């Protein structure tokens, strides 16, 4: 398989963006990534779109050629939509790698996009719930916050994780987002404010434990490593990637405090990259809820099982910690435009490895990781990137 390199990145602002359409957002991110790569739409040889629920949020299907045509892509290339719930973006990016790796395309455009603020919150909650098991979870009244709340309760029961541990994730990610001009949340929050906030979403998770309802898009351009040298001044290579799956519904899992798909995908990606956990300088992990970041850093092998909460409180994952996690602000504070998230994670890691992350730059960052989770963990995609 050919080696693959990221040569262009682009983000829209993440937020509540009422005056801009789904297409406006996708096209903006796509154009930025192509400009950054120094190519025109004619240079794109395959296009993958990550989107979760355009059919619900904007009543539109057949989304990849919808975006491709708006960008003026060539007629002789494939435009393909990937839907894997909240891992749609990560899975779309993975397809882009495979297209280049297999030699079927020389340069690939990947865009992730979601426009969510088109309906009231209960309707958003309902659309998101469709990523769960309709018959055995949604019909019962499960929401995604309640699914992760049940994981949090088990984590508290089995490992003594506390609300203070969960809050430490929020404090850190809000702080990081303040240094990210594209982030939705631009508000610092203290441990005391969070612990005194009583807005329960799904007990034991409260408002400050939940990611945001976000409009936004992110894009990347990929090329074969040999050709990338002539195209990009700061190429970033993909050195490991893997996708895994697990039981579809939460109740079918043996242990609610672990995502087997993350463990599997991480093991495969690290083996492919030929590196150790300690070699990771910066990571974007799927913190759809605070407990999800705690479980992710355990499953990825950054900290021992059960110690994700105390490690977060101790600053292990802060900007200057051993593993800088969610320097962008993460889903919690950068925002979570579902289908864009997995691509946005790549954009953040590439900025970090290029040394272009401004006030949130991790010093001497050479190797980074992204972790994108779908549903209640039925899909997980992990990518490991390194400065060329």
């Amino acid at each position, binding site marked *: 398989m050919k080696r693959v390199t990221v040569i262009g990145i682009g983000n829209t602002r993440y937020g509540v963006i009422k005056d801009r359409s789904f297409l406006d957002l996708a096209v903006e991110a796509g154009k930025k990534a192509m400009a950054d790569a120094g190519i025109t739409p004619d240079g794109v040889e395959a296009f993958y779109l990550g989107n979760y629920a355009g059919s619900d949020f904007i009543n539109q299907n057949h989304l990849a050629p919808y975006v491709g045509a708006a960008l003026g892509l060539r007629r002789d290339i494939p435009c393909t939509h990937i839907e894997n719930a909240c891992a749609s973006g990560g899975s779309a990016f993975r397809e882009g790698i495979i297209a280049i790796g297999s030699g079927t395309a020389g340069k690939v455009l990947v865009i992730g996009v979601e426009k969510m603020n088109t309906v*009231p*919150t*209960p*309707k958003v*909650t*309902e659309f998101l*719930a469709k990523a769960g098991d309709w018959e*055995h*979870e*949604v*019909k*019962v*009244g*499960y*929401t995604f*916050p*309640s*699914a992760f*709340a*049940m*994981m949090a*309760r*088990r984590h508290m*029961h089995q490992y003594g994780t506390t609300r203070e541990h969960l809050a430490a994730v929020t404090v850190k990610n809000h702080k990081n987002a303040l240094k990210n001009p594209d982030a939705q949340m631009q508000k610092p929050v203290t441990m005391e404010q969070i612990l005194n906030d009583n807005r*329960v*979403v*799904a*007990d*034991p*998770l409260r408002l400050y434990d939940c990611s945001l309802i976000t409009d936004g898009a992110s894009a990347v351009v990929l090329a074969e490593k040999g050709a990338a040298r002539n195209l990009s001044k700061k190429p970033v290579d993909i050195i490991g990637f893997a996708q895994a799956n697990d039981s579809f*519904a*939460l*109740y*079918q899992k043996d242990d*609610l405090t672990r995502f087997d798909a993350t463990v599997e995908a991480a093991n495969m990606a690290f083996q492919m990259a030929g590196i150790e956990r300690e070699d990771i300088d910066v990571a974007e992990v799927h913190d759809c809820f605070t407990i999800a970041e705690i479980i992710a850093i355990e499953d990825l092998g950054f900290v021992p099982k059960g110690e994700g909460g105390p490690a977060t409180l101790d600053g292990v994952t802060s900007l200057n910690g051993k593993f800088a996690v969610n320097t962008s602000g993460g889903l919690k504070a950068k925002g979570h435009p579902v289908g864009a998230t997995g691509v946005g994670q790549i954009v953040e890691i590439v900025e970090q490895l290029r040394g272009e992350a401004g006030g949130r730059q991790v010093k001497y960052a050479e190797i980074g990781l992204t972790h994108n989770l779908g549903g209640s963990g039925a899909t997980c995609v992990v990518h490991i990137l390194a400065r060329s």
Partner: protein
Amino acid sequence: MTFVSVGGTMNIKVLKCSSCGKISSIPAYFCKSCKFEKLEETEVPGKGILYSYSTVHVPLATHEKEAPYTVAIVELEGGCKITGRILETSSDKLSVGASVEVAEIKDGVYLFKLSN
């Protein structure tokens, strides 16, 4: 879907592996324990322990009028887990490991109550 046994406890239909005897919740197309593909319908008592639970305050649009309500995963005797609602929403009465039993079934959803 379910039956009331002689003792008065509601039973729950599950699947039993014809090879190793392990119980699975419906649906299942192979035994998770031994991968055998022949599973037979059987019944177990509708009793178990509260494996985890959450009281939902921000509901789905389809369940807006019912909130707050408590959703749960219950581990049945024999180890398999199923989903349902808990009729008790007062959090100080609920805990992981509490004994629960089926009180009724509504639109195919198991409603559990705390056992005495």
